């Protein structure tokens, strides 16, 4: 909805506006502007959200896959680990800047594009006793070790945290900061050690977790000396050849 339309909506009462916002009919920007003008509107919006939730009130509970909770805890632990650097972390200025991580407020993309942090899961020793018990209980467990790395150009904030789930042969790519919208598609590449050509791994969503399944060939080449790069490609069809500018890159580091 355009701003002038909102103005023209003088006839539309604020409760109807709250309902429109609750349904998502009004753009996020317009909704933010409306709640800024009228802070009490938030309660009204929540009230309508509660009402509309009635549409799914009859949804029966469905027990989630037992893998889901460990996966969530891995992801949040990766984020927490970035805020509290391990003792033997390299003494770069990066870690001082990582406190922003918990805030996750909008960060200009140019600044955000400067670096990338990884959480890499390689050694089973890192599984904590609780997880080992879960493993003994038969539930699948995602192995993980937390690692941080940043590169480019110097100490920019991380753009993505990548978790390598060796067991499931996939990468979880979690955006670390809100990224400004731009034309193009962020695409993740594996740069193998040696002279190998970059291998396209897939599109990474700038606003939510992406899961990329890894082929046996990619798994074989994903070594501690390989690295990952995110480029901005003109379209999702990349033809296995990076054409766009590098947005972020990082190396695997094992602590």
């Amino acid at each position: 909805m355009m701003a002038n339309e909102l103005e023209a909506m003088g006839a539309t009462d604020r409760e109807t506006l709250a309902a429109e916002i609750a349904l998502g009919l009004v753009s996020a920007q317009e909704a933010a502007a409306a709640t800024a003008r009228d802070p009490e509107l938030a309660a009204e919006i929540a009230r309508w959200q509660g009402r509309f939730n009635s549409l799914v009130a009859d949804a029966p509970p469905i027990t989630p896959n037992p893998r889901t909770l460990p996966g969530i805890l891995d992801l949040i632990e990766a984020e927490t680990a970035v805020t509290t650097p391990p003792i033997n972390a390299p003494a770069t200025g990066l870690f001082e800047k990582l406190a922003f991580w918990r805030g996750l407020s909008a960060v200009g993309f140019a600044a955000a594009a400067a670096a990338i942090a990884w959480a890499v899961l390689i050694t089973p020793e890192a599984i904590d006793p609780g997880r080992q018990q879960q493993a003994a209980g038969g539930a699948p467990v995602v192995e993980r070790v937390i690692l941080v790395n940043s590169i480019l150009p110097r100490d920019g904030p991380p753009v993505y945290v990548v978790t390598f789930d060796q067991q499931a042969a996939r990468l979880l790519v979690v955006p670390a900061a809100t990224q400004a919208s731009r034309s193009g598609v962020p695409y993740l590449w594996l740069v193998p050690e040696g002279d190998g050509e970059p291998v396209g791994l897939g599109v990474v969503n700038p606003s939510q977790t992406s899961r990329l399944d890894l082929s046996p060939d990619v798994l074989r080449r994903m070594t501690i000396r390989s690295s990952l790069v995110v480029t901005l490609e003109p379209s999702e069809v990349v033809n296995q050849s990076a054409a766009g500018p590098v947005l972020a890159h990082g190396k695997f580091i094992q602590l």
Partner: protein
Amino acid sequence: MKQRSQTADTAHRAAELKLEMVLRRIASGDQAALAELYRLTSARLNGVIWRFVLNRAMAEEVLQDVYVNVWRKASTFDAGHGSPTTWLMSIARNRAIDRLRAEKVRVQPSEDIADIELAHAGASALDAMVEGETTEALLRCLDRLGPDQQRAIRAAFFRGSTYSELADAENVPLSTMKSRIRRALMQLRKCIEYHDGE
């Protein structure tokens, strides 16, 4: 609401209060609290997510996204602006819709709406996790709207459709769709207030 026993209402309020306390702990960075929230709410939220997405893999990813988002945003939860359940369900709905739209899941509008109505046809047991007071009133009042109004509201809720998408789907001018929905929302409000005695 009026039919609900006082015991059920008390239990409901106690459950919300507990969720609120767990959210506070999460906001302070307590991972165990997130695991507790998950135990308390994941099956319910998963069921809700299943109403939006159409396959297991997608539902699982959305559920994971929901709790990672809760972890990040717990400090923004404001009990003065609604219950923890409403907040959690809104996150679940938003993440599910974002995921659907990212996948460019698009079914023909007619099928889309048929799916939605089919899903609703199974409505029966009211879930204690959702505010019982508003559930019955909303459903009853929605039923009193015209079919085109109901369709539009359901499509907006389940698919995150915008005004212009709804106008396109129904092949009517944007202004027609806007006034149709706004009229529907005003009727809904009046009807709900009457039922709730608000």
